[in-house]
């Protein structure tokens, strides 16, 4: 009996947790639209606009029939992002964890892109095909600096587990204080990961009519919108977890439930800041061509990340100041 109760409570908590994360993502999309509108000198939609959009899309029915892979693709993308959400600590709370989950997370982040690729392939629309090719190339380009950044963190903190990483940051200082160079490289990589300008190449509407999304409509598009809301949280939260200590200011072991609430609020504020930086950059830059983005990523951010790696190596291995 108690087992069942436990499972039910756990399931409820999980659902609430993922639901909250998606809501935060949708709210962020609305805020981004409002902020962008203010930069454009206009009023902009209400910040809850994206909730209405998602509701409308989910209430619509999609009449587009290609094959079952196409139907499966949005689910695949959404499931991928939910899994990533489950693995990411948000305000110190996380559903799943394990040793070496820093590397696992990298692979989970690829799942949604595969979902897009499946859907685009099934729809046989050339625009979608080009868009997916671009998305995969873009992934290949930002992953180079990002891997170097992860490596520097692993060397400095001597762990491949996110939980340990957070704990170590909680007991000393945030990683951004000791590894600022790596943090800079990670933020540039983050811009590409979130597909904000100048790296919104895969969905460029003027070139390929919104790319992988071109065939999706109705409730499929609604699911994809939920996916993108979730991925905003995943990506900003990833940065916060890696470099800003996951927003953990109070030790849950000492303060209990209060710590969770405070940490969640701090985490929210931190991912908001990271998101706003991305939005401001988004508003004032045109987009690269894909090969320019590739060259850019393999040049400057990679160089910066390599510098960060060297710093981490010198500090931890040679000077031995690692925590």
């Amino acid at each position, binding site marked *: 009996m108690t087992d069942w109760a436990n499972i039910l409570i756990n399931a409820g908590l999980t659902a609430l947790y993922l639901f909250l994360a998606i809501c935060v993502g949708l709210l962020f999309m609305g805020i981004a639209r409002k902020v962008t509108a203010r930069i*454009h000198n206009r009023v902009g939609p209400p910040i809850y606009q994206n909730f209405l959009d998602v509701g409308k899309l989910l209430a619509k029915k999609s009449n587009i029939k290609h094959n079952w892979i196409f139907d499966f693709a949005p689910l695949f993308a959404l499931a991928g992002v939910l899994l990533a959400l489950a693995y990411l600590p948000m305000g110190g709370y996380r559903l799943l964890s394990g040793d070496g989950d820093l590397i696992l997370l990298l692979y989970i982040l690829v799942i949604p892109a595969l979902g897009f690729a499946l859907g685009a392939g099934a729809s046989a629309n050339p625009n979608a095909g080009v868009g997916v090719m671009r998305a995969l190339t873009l992934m290949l380009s930002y992953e180079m600096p990002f891997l170097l950044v992860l490596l520097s963190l692993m060397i400095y903190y001597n762990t491949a587990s996110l939980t340990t990483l957070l704990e170590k940051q909680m007991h000393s200082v945030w990683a951004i204080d000791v590894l600022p160079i790596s943090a800079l490289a990670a933020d540039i990589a983050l811009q590409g990961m979130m597909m904000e300008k100048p790296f919104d190449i895969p969905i460029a*509407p*003027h*070139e390929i009519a919104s790319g992988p999304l071109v065939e999706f409509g109705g409730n499929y598009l609604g699911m994809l919108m939920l996916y993108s809301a979730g991925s905003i949280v995943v990506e900003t939260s990833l940065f916060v977890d890696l470099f800003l200590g996951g927003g953990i200011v109070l030790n849950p072991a000492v303060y209990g439930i209060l710590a969770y609430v405070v940490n969640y609020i701090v985490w929210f504020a931190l991912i908001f800041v990271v998101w706003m930086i991305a939005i401001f950059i988004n508003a004032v830059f045109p987009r*690269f061509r894909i090969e320019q983005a590739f060259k850019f990523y393999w040049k400057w951010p990679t160089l910066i990340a390599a510098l960060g790696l060297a710093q981490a190596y010198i500090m931890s291995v040679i000077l031995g100041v690692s925590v």
Partner: protein
Amino acid sequence: MKEFELFVGPQHVGVTGNMMYHLWVDGDTVVKAETHVGYLHRGFEKLMERRSWLMNVALIPRICVPEPDVNEAVYAMAVESLMDWEIPERAKYIRAMVLELARLSAHLLAISGYAGTIGLYTIPQWLIGDRDYILDLFEQLTGARVYHIYIFPGGVRWDLPNGFLRKLEKVLNYLESRFKLYDDLLFQNKIFFDRAPDVGVIPKEKAIEWGVTGPNLRACGYAYDVRKVDPYAAYPDLDFEIPHYPKFGDFEVLGHGCDCYSRMVVRRLEMEQSIRILRQIIKKIPDGPHTLKLPNPLAWKVPAGYAYARVESSKGEYGYLVISDGGKMPYRVHVRGPSYTHGINVIEKIAPGLNIADFAQTAFSLDVCPPDIER
């Protein structure tokens, strides 16, 4: 990889208006392009043969939507040639003023469309917002925002309203103060420098032969402008320069000319010249009648003959060949739109070899306006 077909348009964000480019793409590179037009064909030339000389004034602005005034001006000039009318000086100045305002608004639209294609959505928001002040001026002057029907054979419909020139001066000052922002955001943007130069190049030696005109020709390094080579309205009395590659003033000269970058910078510099011209007009505009004393408009008989009039629109040379057989209606009107060559012949020739990411920006930098292709 086998080449695949890509249809840009008619329902697509990357086309200027309602037309279609049919691309054959290999990997990321366009190997062949074909333009398909006709989605906006209304048979203007046929309809004009069925309407009287004066009724046509209401019809023609609809040929080119972003810049309707050139149609009115060029039609009026052609009819005046046939009638042998010399219009009053004040009307000439007012026409020049209207045409320059139209050029400003069309360039603002062209630049914002271009910025949209490379993904800078802040520029369209600002520029089109600012363009509305020019439309407000038009509204005060003519009563309409888009189709003004203001210039007509013999002069202009009515005189300037009170205080119009003062308001014009204010708008010019405002626009000039905004140019700095546009430059910071677009014309000095690093990614614009990365993307635009040496993209969509028209071979310089072929440019004239291919029928390239207007800012696109000037971006190739020829300082040809109908306002100088075949002057009309009040332009002979006005002092202005023709910006052309490589004379870009404060702007950097990147690339080798004839590319998207030069075309956009030429447009940007032309806006400055338009403001300069408008300032001179405000100072120099003479008093006097704004129109000739016209005969009964219902019974206009235009002497038989051929007349060709041309003006410099924001897109290039705009001309009407008007043929009269002495009747109450034109016998034949042929509209020579600048986009006719840019949108079909030029783009089909320069598209092979372009990256598909650059196709939209090339099409927008040529400033193709489909309604004046098919009319």
